[in-house]
């Protein structure tokens, strides 16, 4: 007879529910993304989710692990979704496939699967693609160009066929972050960049991008409200990004973008609420989460401003993932009945 130790009751939560909540909270941002960047988002999502589930199943099978509980937990699907949202919408299928397979197999399963991966799998896949295929990974379509149909995206993804009379270079363009960076390197001031690329800029940051970020922010509030995540990481991340950019913007507003531009550009909000908060790879103590978030915010700013890539979120997350064990060790909370350290 197997004796189970107390307690003999449990809360009806499960990993599955946690992952589901995260996935549902991504819906507003995803819909707005489809609005600005077309149905390619949906195609990428479909490819990524399929690849993620198949890769996960394959490795589980090889590792002789039960398939059902691990496929049903939703973690592989979530990794696929997060990666798909980070890949340009007009992309060949193999780009999404390769990134997702790499994320699940190398980034997650080879470390032992759910709960054992030190690095955020979606970011591992993303960074691999960014380094290996920089051109494909930085070309987004114009957010105001709504002319591409589902069929167009489908044909490009699977057959590399573009609509008649249109070229790849004409359809795609650099993102706002990319444009700003490139032109700053050419010694243009922010004012000049802005007036030279009026079509790219919205009220806060890049056109389209600002709305996507706002919707991910709303999704993040939902996660906070239903207590799937705590405030520590998003607040620390966005706070440090805000204050650092505010400082440099205050020093020289010609060459350093505004805090709002940083907060609502690129993957800032998606990372703050959905990627950096991945519990497996984030710091686990409350104090640690704050240091972890501050680190990501600071590194994101450093890479965006002085690094070689337009956006630094993915690198920042991976670098801070490495620091997690140390952060956790030195930020243990005061135990009941112990003196304040």
């Amino acid at each position: 007879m197997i004796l189970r130790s107390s307690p003999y009751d449990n809360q009806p939560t499960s990993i599955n529910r946690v992952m589901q909540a995260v996935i549902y909270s991504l819906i507003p941002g995803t819909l707005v993304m489809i609005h600005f960047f077309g149905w390619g988002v949906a195609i990428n999502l479909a490819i990524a989710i399929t690849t993620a589930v198949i890769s996960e199943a394959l490795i589980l099978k090889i590792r002789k692990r039960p398939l059902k509980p691990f496929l049903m937990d939703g973690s592989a699907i979530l990794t696929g979704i997060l990666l798909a949202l980070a890949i340009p919408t007009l992309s060949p299928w193999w780009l999404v496939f390769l990134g997702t397979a790499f994320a699940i197999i190398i980034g997650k399963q080879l470390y032992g699967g759910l709960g054992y991966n030190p690095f955020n799998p979606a970011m591992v896949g993303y960074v691999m693609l960014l380094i290996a295929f920089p051109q494909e990974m930085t070309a987004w379509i114009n957010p105001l160009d709504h002319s591409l149909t589902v069929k167009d995206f489908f044909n490009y993804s699977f057959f590399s066929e573009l609509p008649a009379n249109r070229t790849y270079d004409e359809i795609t363009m650099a993102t706002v972050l990319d444009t700003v960076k490139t032109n700053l390197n050419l010694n243009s001031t922010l004012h000049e960049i802005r007036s030279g690329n009026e079509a790219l800029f919205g009220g806060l940051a890049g056109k389209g991008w600002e709305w996507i970020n706002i919707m991910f922010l709303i999704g993040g509030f939902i996660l906070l409200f239903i207590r799937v995540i705590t405030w520590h990481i998003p607040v620390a991340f966005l706070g440090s990004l805000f204050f650092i950019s505010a400082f440099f913007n205050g020093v020289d507003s010609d060459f350093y973008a505004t805090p709002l531009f940083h907060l609502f550009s690129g993957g800032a909000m998606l990372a703050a609420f959905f990627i950096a908060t991945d519990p497996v790879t984030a710091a686990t103590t409350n104090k640690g989460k704050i240091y972890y978030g501050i680190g990501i915010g600071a590194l994101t700013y450093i890479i965006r401003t002085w690094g070689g890539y337009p956006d630094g979120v993915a690198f920042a997350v991976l670098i801070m993932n490495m620091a997690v064990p140390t952060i956790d060790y030195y930020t243990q909370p005061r135990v009941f009945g112990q003196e304040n350290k």
Partner: protein
Amino acid sequence: MKPRLWHFHGGLKLEGHKAMSMHEAVVQADIPRRLVLPLQQHIGEPAEPIVEIGDSVLKNQVIAQASDYVSVPVHAPTSGTVISIEDHPVPHPSGMSAACIIIETDGKDIAIETNTTPVDYKNLEASALRNLIREAGIVGLGGAGFPSFIKLNPGPDARVETLILNGAECEPYITCDAMLMQDSPRKIIDGLLIMRHALNIDKCIIAIEDNKKAAHTMLVNALREDETSFINVIQIPTLYPAGGEKQIIKVVTGKEVPSHGLPIDVGVVCHNVGTAAAVADAILNRQPLIERYITVTGDAVKQPRNLRVRFGTSVESLLKQCEGYDVQQCIMGGPMMGFELTSQSIPVIKTTNCLLTSRKKYHAPTSMPCIRCGECAKACPAQLLPQQLYWYARAKDFDKIQDYNLFDCIECGCCAYVCPSHIPLVQYYRFAKTEIWAMERDKQKSDIARERHEFRLYRMERKKVEDEERKRRKKALLKAAAGDKTTEDDKKKAAIEAALARVKAKREQQNSQAKNVNEEELTEAQKKAIAEVEERRIKAREKQQIKIEENKEESGSS
């Protein structure tokens, strides 16, 4: 006036399920044919039986006596015959067996004749009072079962300021304390007064979770006018585990019992309300502890209720009385900290507060890997990091796990309850604790063995050195003799002469110092006689000396 209350970290709001067992009035449970009384119903050393098989015993008679300081006696709960003293399954999470006295009851329930006049405790020394409480076999009835008289003995250096009676009863389903507070509020207060006297303090608090309004009202109404100035009956928020000793002290006083410390370190002594009632019985009614309120509840009994049960009554007998049916699982204690019983023949003991039955065995959902979500850390009332403890328990990294304060874990089960991966976390911590204790025992053993071994090596070394020294001396002696180029006889002669010389020297020494007193006062004849005796003695000694010397020589050269 509403007293100020404090919070402890974490905790859970749990469904109480308390009403179901509170509809029926408490009645005496049937006394079964056989009572099984474990010798250990408390923390500490088991009691020693002082009856033999075949002895007739009467109700309240001591059948086993305290064997050590941390021990209390066991009394016969009813009259009957001792039919066996043997190992029997006892209440324990492992389902183990331990020594029990088994009494066949005679149904007459005749009590032993004793002095029944109430003790005038107000004119009694604290130590005498403690002794009476000990002799009544009283242990903490809240669950742990620590001998109560020890907790009433804070020691000469301790400064106790507050006595807290714990009526929180925070675990779901359990209602025995609530019923007791409703039925016998005055008895609890009387017990409190006795404890207060033993501790020689003023301020007392009775703390009750605010889901037990009736109990609170009854206790408040039972207070006498003059007692309200020093006894405060307060309600605390219902939040599991508010009834944990450290938690209730924090809530009521704002003080934190130090990690690895005792309540006494913050000037608090904490007892369960049931214990207070037992103390009142022992001092005012001269009634030792032989029964208690026990909740029998859950969905596998038709009549969930509280019963007054004699210790040693089998679980089976209680379930029968409450019309148990299809009992697939029976937990002793509550759902959060209780343990599943392996057999219904297990008796109830002093620390049994509840039998929780179920028609469905609890099957935890399959465990998934830890995703470090931190829900457990949010819930942990000890402010630990259960996710890290789990990690190190799995890795059997017992040094690291102690860095993370494993031994501050109170095993309340909050972490496992909220875990979305359904990991039996408490089980891991119990495992780690057991392993560490075993390692410490092994280490102690091996330390002793090592010390012994080292001493043996030292002894052998010393012997070697001594032997060599002896040999060396002998050699030197031989060499010296050989240097004279004399024969064996000469050698012997030389040795004899040397011995003689030594004796002479000694004698002279003796003569010079140790003479008898007042030689001047002796007559000439006396002096002469003494001299003669002396001479004879010396001669005899000389002879002896020579003989010894010769023997030595012989054995040495052979």
